[in-house]
């Protein structure tokens, strides 16, 4: 099988899309029967959504939670950026977690799985910018761990892909750099001195604690999206790459020269075994495998030009990869992949890594449309591919195909829905599990121009809700989302039972206090400590005395055990605001640098006398303390 497109067609199409100013998005075509559509996404006041939509906040560093079908934003989970709204990044614990960074670039949330089904334990997200992964606990919707920067890994874009039983979070590098990090090599030596990496982040099954498992060294390709296997592809993981040209400048052109790039098919179970067998070399504290020296760990697979996404179907047999600069998407049969590996049916090797014979493993190329990026599945044998350039979603049939269908591959594409505009990812609930929910598809579009009341040059993204329960897709709702949703995960609301208060019995903070008479302040050398109770509608104690030059350590406990009875503690002119949930204790450490009487107050409206919930931090000038005492 050969690619059935010419570069002139692509170029023409791209030009049409660019020059046409996204004319595909005629608002009139999107909605034909407003009332019945409104009913589909209407969630009456007091009613609850059926699904959670966890969507990444991109360079805002956050994760946003919305409901489906209402598409209403419910809550923001801060991860890589401080968020005064929940006091994240102000108390000692979250500040330590953020480390030296005040932002991250969240791209791909991944729900934890057991037996290839969502188990509702954790949500993992990546930071493309600073090479980190974070774990959000779905028991309380809070960020519990940030791991990284990951050694030998630069540009953590190709994650967070969760293995079948959450053994690993798989990570691949978008950028290649000289390794180990900290080393400098001339740009001209890019192809030889720079490297990419694929990493397995190990997850403790009890605690969710992430640690570095192993890494696999790769040529300096730019690794892109990935997915994990199941069923026949159990134990495997897949990533696409661009820039197999190994260009280091003007990638726009120089990385778009080859008609094919490579996907990496990685046997992570073999990698795990090889590391256990001592075949890895330690680089920067991590066991790293050289795949050319450890056969069976990594294979290259030719894919269409400059691919972005690769997605395993719910059965685990069909692996779908799209080259964004070609109008088709390729379906690989993983059973044929295994047979080709067995028969050593390689068309080439690249730096000692076998390149599988494309014709032997490709089931077919589906003419989905222009700029195919990502594919999702409904569990009913249908696939949905986002078309960036075309601003549309294509619905098509997964194999097996009949002879008639093979003869006319156009017939495999059964529906197309315009979206507004330039769709990146799309998500169908549970698409990466054995049993997708189907029902809804959310298209996450990069541009929203002209779709909303004008808000000036900084425009939001748009997320569109599409009903996929019928034969034809139906556009139901449109929401404007904060920058910038890349990917999302959908989880049934009744799949989890988050807590609403932290039970007092679980609070093991050494300085938690539970009644107003226990609240106290004391001095140890140059450190003033305060154990403070926050309860409707007062702090206890409500006066803290210290002097300039002191370090102040405040432990504040919200002793409420009532749902939604949240208190805050903001300190005037000290850049401090923590928010304490019921039953929670937070610690703040600050250096007192200026004299004065500084009010502190409850920042999270709690009660009729919330406004009265206040106190004073008295900071004496350094020299006068002796006199006043």
């Amino acid at each position, binding site marked *: 099988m050969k690619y059935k497109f010419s570069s002139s067609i692509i170029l023409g199409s791209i030009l049409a899309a660019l020059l046409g100013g996204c004319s595909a998005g005629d608002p009139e075509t999107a909605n034909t029967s407003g009332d019945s559509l409104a009913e589909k996404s209407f969630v009456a006041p007091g009613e609850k959504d059926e699904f959670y939509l966890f969507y990444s906040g991109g360079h805002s560093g956050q994760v946003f939670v919305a409901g489906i079908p209402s598409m209403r934003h419910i809550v923001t989970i801060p991860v890589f950026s401080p968020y005064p709204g929940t006091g994240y990044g102000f108390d000692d614990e979250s500040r330590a977690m953020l480390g030296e960074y005040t932002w991250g670039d969240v791209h791909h949330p991944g729900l934890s799985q057991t037996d290839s089904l969502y188990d509702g334990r954790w949500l993992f997200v990546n930071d493309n910018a600073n090479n980190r992964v974070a774990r959000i606990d779905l028991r309380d919707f809070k960020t519990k761990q940030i791991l990284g920067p990951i050694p030998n890994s630069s540009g953590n874009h190709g994650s967070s892909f969760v293995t079948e039983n959450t053994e690993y979070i798989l990570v691949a590098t978008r950028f290649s750099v000289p390794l180990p990090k900290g080393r400098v090599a001339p740009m001209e030596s890019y192809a030889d001195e720079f490297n990419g990496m694929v990493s397995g982040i190990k997850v403790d099954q009890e605690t969710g604690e992430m640690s570095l498992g192993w890494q696999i060294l790769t040529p300096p390709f730019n690794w892109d999206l990935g997915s994990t296997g199941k069923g026949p592809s159990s134990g495997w993981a897949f990533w696409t790459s661009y820039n197999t040209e190994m260009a280091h400048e003007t990638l726009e052109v120089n990385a778009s020269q080859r008609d094919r790039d490579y996907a990496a098919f990685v046997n992570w179970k073999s990698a795990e075994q090889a590391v256990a067998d001592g075949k890895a070399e330690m680089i920067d504290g991590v066991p790293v495998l050289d795949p050319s020296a450890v056969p069976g760990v990594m294979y290259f697979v030719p894919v269409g030009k400059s691919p972005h996404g690769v997605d395993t179907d719910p059965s685990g047999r069909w692996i779908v990869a799209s080259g964004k600069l070609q109008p088709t998407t390729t379906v690989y049969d993983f059973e044929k992949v295994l047979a080709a590996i067995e028969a050593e049916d390689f068309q080439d090797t690249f730096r000692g890594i076998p390149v599988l014979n494309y014709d032997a493993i490709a089931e077919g190329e589906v003419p989905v449309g222009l700029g195919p990026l990502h594919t999702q599945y409904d569990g009913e044998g249908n696939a949905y591919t986002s078309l960036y350039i075309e601003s549309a979603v294509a619905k098509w049939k997964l194999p097996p195909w009949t002879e008639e269908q093979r003869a006319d591959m156009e017939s495999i594409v059964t529906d197309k829905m315009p979206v507004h505009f330039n769709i990146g990812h799309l998500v169908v609930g549970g698409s990466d599990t054995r049993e997708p929910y189907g029902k809804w598809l959310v298209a996450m579009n990069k541009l929203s121009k002209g779709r909303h009341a004008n808000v000036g040059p900084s425009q939001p993204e748009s997320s569109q809700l599409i009903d996929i329960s019928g034969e034809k897709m139906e556009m139901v709702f449109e929401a404007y989302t904060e920058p910038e949703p890349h990917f999302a995960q959908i989880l049934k609301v009744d799949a989890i039972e988050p807590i609403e208060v932290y039970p007092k019995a679980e609070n093991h903070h050494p300085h938690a206090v539970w009644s107003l008479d226990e609240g106290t302040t004391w001095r140890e050398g140059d450190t003033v400590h305060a154990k403070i109770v926050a309860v409707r509608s007062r702090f206890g104690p409500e006066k803290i005395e210290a002097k300039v030059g002191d370090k102040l350590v405040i432990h504040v406990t919200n002793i409420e*055990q009532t749902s939604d009875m949240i208190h805050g503690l903001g300190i005037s002119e000290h850049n401090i605001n923590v928010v304490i949930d019921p039953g929670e204790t937070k610690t703040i450490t600050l250096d007192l640098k200026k004299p004065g009487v500084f009010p502190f107050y409850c920042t999270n409206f709690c009660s009729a006398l919330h406004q009265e919930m206040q106190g004073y931090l008295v900071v004496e000038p350094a020299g006068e303390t002796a006199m006043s005492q």
Partner: protein
Amino acid sequence: MKNPLKSSSETNLPWWRRELRFLDRALNPLSRGLMLVAAVLFALVVLFPLWRITLVAPQYQEGLRLTIYAYQLVGGNGGQDLVEINNLNHYIGMKPIEESDFVEITWLPFVLGIFVILSLRAAVLGRISQVIDILVLFTYLGLFSLGLFYHRLYTYGHDLDPKAPMTIEPFTPVIIGKNKIANFVQWSYPSVGGWLMLLIPVVLVLAVWFSRKGRRA
């Protein structure tokens, strides 16, 4: 015509003495069975909740519940509702509701135990007068407890701290029924144990009724 069953001395008694003679009558097997039932009911009263108070407000749609047992006071939601009620009550200057205020829960199970013993005694020895004793004592206990309960509620609602953030008219929470206090609607009703307590006198009366014409003990 003389009733052959009545002795001649009986006929000589004043009418009211004659009316009370039935107290000496023996309980028939049915009535003895009912006394066993009464003994069981007294025991069950200890186990089941006597009264339930529920407070509902716009922001407490699920209700704050307070359940009174013969031996304990339990807040709903794992005890949290009682903490919450006290938390809210501090705004109107009401004293915290504490289990230790309810002195009767230290002696009520003991008293109910006595009633179990008395009922068993009546079932075995089988005299109507013993049943009547239980009925009278139990009625007294019931009225006394209700009175105490009312007094306690009255005190909670009237003994308000004058320095409290919110000033409200002193009030008495209802014992049975529904009442509005500020933004709350208060519901107060007997629970299983309370209904059993109402059932007990019925059982006792039936035990007397079925043996009213029996032989003398």
